């Protein structure tokens, strides 16, 4: 996304192109890892991080906060960790809701 940003095109166009490029890279990664992970839907969380974090860095740079590669990597790692925590929380909530619905017969 930062490469695209250097082209100095319209910000919105660059953002959409950057996100599409990030998604493309993620899809290639997902297919590459599928022999280990099986199907690619388990890559959805990393796809969210891969699309949102470059956007955050880009928005910050447009707002005047300049990021070096190390800073960007730290933001990426921190965002990945935060999203992991969110997934753990979301998964636990979902499993609890399912268990409650099943025991109450509400799944029907």
């Amino acid at each position, binding site marked *: 996304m930062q490469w695209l940003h250097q082209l100095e095109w319209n910000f919105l166009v660059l953002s959409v192109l950057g996100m599409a490029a990030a998604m493309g890279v993620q899809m290639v990664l997902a297919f590459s890892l599928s022999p280990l992970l099986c199907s690619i839907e388990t890559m959805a969380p990393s796809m*969210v991080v891969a699309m949102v974090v470059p956007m955050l860095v880009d928005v910050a740079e447009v707002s005047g906060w300049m990021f070096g590669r190390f800073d960007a990597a730290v933001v990426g790692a921190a965002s990945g960790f935060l999203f992991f925590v969110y997934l753990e929380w979301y998964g636990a909530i979902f499993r609890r809701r399912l268990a409650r619905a099943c025991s109450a017969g509400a799944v029907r």
Partner: protein
Amino acid sequence: MTSVWDLRALLYDVCEGSQLRRGAAKARLFAQMHGQVLFLAVGTGVDINRFPTGQNIIGIDISHEMLRRAETRRRAYCGQMAFVLGDAERLAFGDESFDTVVSSCTMCSVPQPVVALKELHRVLRPGGRLLMFEHVRSRSWSLGLALDLMTLWTRLLGTEMNRDTVANVRTAGFDIVRIESVYLDIILSIHAVKKAA
């Protein structure tokens, strides 16, 4: 449609063969097979080694190439297993022919999932079980959006990542007995029954 799956058969074992993360959950689901079993979209048979032994199973697939590649696994299965080339939306079986119908990552790839599920409902005996291992759209907005975006690409290969299979199962007339989370709310083990008449 058939040719896409004949093509995907070439890489199916590589992309779908890993049981590392899901094998145990699939085995738990498949353990509930009983009686005459219909296994939908058997593919290259990557799930066969998770089937309980001694069952009487008919596996169908729309792709001749998939079934050809599954043949070795079929022969190695300790039980009765036959393959039939067929379409989930037009099953060549009579009404109420099966006690259990099983699907594994199938409803993402059938063009009209409700039509296929109604077919499964038709061939299942009253009180029969539908056991599904399926990936669906997440209700989390971020994950749901990611799956919607992924579908823009995967649709070209015949797979939709954002289907509401639980709602489709209900629409087809099944009673959902239990849902288990295999991975968040994206990969689910769905246990449903056809209401007894």
